[in-house]
């Protein structure tokens, strides 16, 4: 397996996805990103010459081996390995650790994120394939501190026990409700069948999704 001596680089902003980097994020920027964050303005012009929506590499990609991803509505530049999976990139380079590794190989759903609105297992999705597509993770659901109705109902109905499966469940539920605003119990089960919950918290998860549907 190939490797480089270059440490992982993160984009400005650490783990907060709600806008530009805050002071807290820079202080928190423990992913080797502090320097980049402080000099972020230097890259602003490069950003414009970056990859187009069709995935054609721009100047920045060609010169720094960085990809442009669109995650939770923000453009993020990141250096990736050829074989790197989206879950790795999200977690260790973009600081978005809400997406979990439960199995690493498409067996559990803990890593579920949305690509263009569809639920996918990010543990088995190459980061390079996400270029030019809209990626949404659990961190992208709340707006200005206001939780998404699915998040609210998961709190109320105790939708998470250990909650390791919860972010993935929420992303699958979101994809369902965006397509079908008034699902039956069976339809909810079908939508969540790719998300394993070892705590066996399924009844509460179903209830959470049905409650959210009523409110959305």
């Amino acid at each position, binding site marked *: *397996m*190939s*490797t480089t*001596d270059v440490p*992982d680089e993160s984009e400005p902003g650490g783990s907060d996805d709600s806008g530009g980097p805050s002071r807290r994020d820079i202080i928190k920027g*423990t992913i*080797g990103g502090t320097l980049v964050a402080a000099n972020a303005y230097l890259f602003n012009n490069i950003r414009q010459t970056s990859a187009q929506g069709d995935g054609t590499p721009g100047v920045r990609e060609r010169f720094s081996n960085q990809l442009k991803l669109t995650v939770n509505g923000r453009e993020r530049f990141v250096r990736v*390995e050829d074989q790197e999976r989206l879950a790795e990139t999200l*977690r260790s380079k973009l*600081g*978005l*650790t*809400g*997406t*979990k*590794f*439960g*199995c*690493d*190989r498409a*067996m*559990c759903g*803990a890593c579920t994120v949305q690509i263009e609105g569809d639920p996918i297992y990010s543990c088995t999705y190459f980061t390079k394939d996400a270029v030019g597509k809209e990626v949404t*993770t*659990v*961190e992208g*659901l709340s707006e200005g501190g206001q*939780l998404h109705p*699915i*998040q*609210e109902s*998961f*709190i*109320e*109905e*105790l*939708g*998470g*026990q*250990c*909650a*390791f*499966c*919860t*972010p993935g469940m*929420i992303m699958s539920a979101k994809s369902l409700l965006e397509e079908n605003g008034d699902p039956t119990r069976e339809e909810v*089960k079908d939508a969540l*069948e790719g*998300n*394993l*919950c*070892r*705590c*066996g*918290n*399924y*009844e*509460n*998860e*179903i209830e959470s999704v049905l409650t959210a549907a009523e409110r959305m």
Partner: protein
Amino acid sequence: MSEHNYVGNDFEVPDGRAKVTGEAKYADDYQFDNLLHAKTVKSPYAHARARSIDTSAAEAMSGVEAVITHEDVPDAAIGEPVLAEEPLTFGYPVAAVAATDEYTAAAAVEAIEVDWEVLDHVVDPIETLKPGSPNARPEGNVPTGEAGGEGAEGQGGAEAAADTIKWENADFSGDFPEDPGDFTMEWNWGDVSEGFENAETIYEDTVKAQPQPTNPMEPRSTVAEWGTDGHVTIWGSSQSISLTHTGVAGMIEKPPTEVTFICNFAGGGFGSKGTAYPQMAVPAFLSREVNRPVKIRGTRREEFHWGNGRATYIARTRVGLDGDGNITAMEIDAVGDAGAYSADALSTLSSGFNSLTQCWQPETLRFRGIGVFTNTPKRWPQRGPGQNQAALAIAQVIDEAAKQAGLDPLDVCLQNSPENRGPAGAERLPMTSAYLGEAYELAAEAIDYEEKRARSGTREGSKVYGVGIASASHQSGYIGFDGLVVVHTDGTVEVRQGAGNLGTESFAAVARMVADTMGADWDDVEVSWGSSDKSSFTLGQFSSNTTFTEGLANVKAAETAVQYLKELAAQELGGTADAYNVENHEVVHGQSGESISFAEAAQAAVDAGGKYTAEEIPEQYQESLVPLTIAAASDAVGQGLVAFGKSTGEDLDGFVTSFAGAIAEVSVDLETGKVVVEEMANYNDSGTVIHPESFKAQVEGGAIQGIGYTLFEQYRHDQDTGIPVNTDLYKSKPPSIHDYVSGDLHVGAVGEPDPFGPFGAKGVGEPPYGAASGAVAAAIKDALGTSFSEFPVTPDKVLEKVRAGEVDS
């Protein structure tokens, strides 16, 4: 509505928001500037010895910062070594590397050359008792120490000692060996032969309750940072704080005061992360080499190799019933197997036996057991370890014995359910309370038992229906632990508890009890959890005991706090302490109505000092408290009101025992072999329910896991190579959202308070699992009219019975 402000009512849990936003930090979510990534070199054999390990090529690789082998870590007795010279199972590590990224670490692992001497292996528990068969461990094939009590579940309590026992004259041709040789454990109540003489119906059967990997959703990841000052900080995934803290400190040979353990969220454990485990020590020893944070990211495969699981329990059970359905005699011969790295096959047996006495109260009994070692991963403990295997193994036996006696199985269950203070265990000591009979009755009502019984055996196309009943129990409360409550000068009440946060919300339930005891406003109560620096010392969060054990210790701390608050109010406002009450976050004079707020009282405590702020530790606590509890108060000493609590022998008289009674209806498709649980009722005697929503979640989750155990889950090893063959989730296989109950899953509580429990509470986590497993097994047997000796009941096993003509048609 509950008579209390908080106990018995639902609330928004303190960690709910973090769980749904992705903010909740699990061990692998912590990120560090100069982090190294660890991976291990694993044995490719079921049993082998590393003659030599050449790490030179790995060490020369760019990006590789540390390499350690078994020579760099302490030896372990029968427990799991951190790294092994002679790995006793496939996938057990011998060496580890730390590198700047995972890819480099993986490449370094590939570059390490191990010269293996392959040794004989045995993976079948009965096989290891055959004359001439290999021993799984160099010391022998059977553990011979004392079994661990149920309170020792997280630690792996059994004493490490081993011997070689082979059953020289046994006949191994049947399900259970005839004329077995020595057992290492024997319990007797009365004279079992007399009991069988008094029986009108005697029935015997052998059931193998299969091994199972735990598979919590979060694989066990750990980050460790060994500072240049020698202080070690560990971010891990654990069910517990106190015991994991001390356990991991022991593993890395440090006093606990030089170790900080942090775990704010654990992605499931179900017993397997009860306390410290060797994966925690691997990054710690690597970090010792370089004083940089080292992370080992657990993988799903590794969960199978060293993630624990459920021990095998093979039991030949014989019961005798008199004409009224009383169990006059129960005789069990059992073999337990907890793998190569645990002596807790014995604990599995004793926990199972204990539970059978609790649930069935036989007039006489003889239980004999022998534990064995096999070259399979450590499997202890998992949710109801022993109890739930025993529940599965006896369910079909009771069903058939009842039928042969011409009785309804429900009546036999009711007839033999325990008296409220009935006896339990080898010593026949009283339980603190027992309402299993009530649980069965509530379940029968919820599922409409009469209707289900009427449908039993009827056909609908290729499907045949059956109904089954079962029970399970667990010892779920302990004394001798510490509580700690701080009232800050801003009026906030802080509960510094030492259980972990594994998703049951019992840490929050403990705080609810404190709030009610202190007349505090919930909004001004803070639960601190997740760091050993602020944890009062308590038992681990396993054995369904947190609500009782930690509840009791912290309610006692809250009572101390109330006493202090009253004394301080009397000093401030006059009168005697007795004249004051606590309510609405104030200390109020019963007659005059004059009051001071908690904030004012805390300030008065600071002004007064002494015992009120723990500047002086009251005499009664000087000896009794664990020093770590006093250390956990250190930052609050002199800064607020500090109150300790200690539960003692005076607080308990008997075994705290929680029960579940379950009834399931199944359909079995004779053409496809598929079993569907159509409906289930699972009712629990857990004492007072503190938090109804999480009670429901525990019972449902337990029931679903229990269904998974009977129908899907297993852990299989190839006999010839000793290599595990189903180390993937879809092969092993935990139930999905489509796999548990197709109709209603009714759950509920008896709700009778326990006389010794805090607010009358007992525990809940484990019994609903065993009751569900047994009920499904009994229901399948009821549908088909034939018993299964091997589990899980997968479609192939059903079809085999159909083809063999064993199924009623």
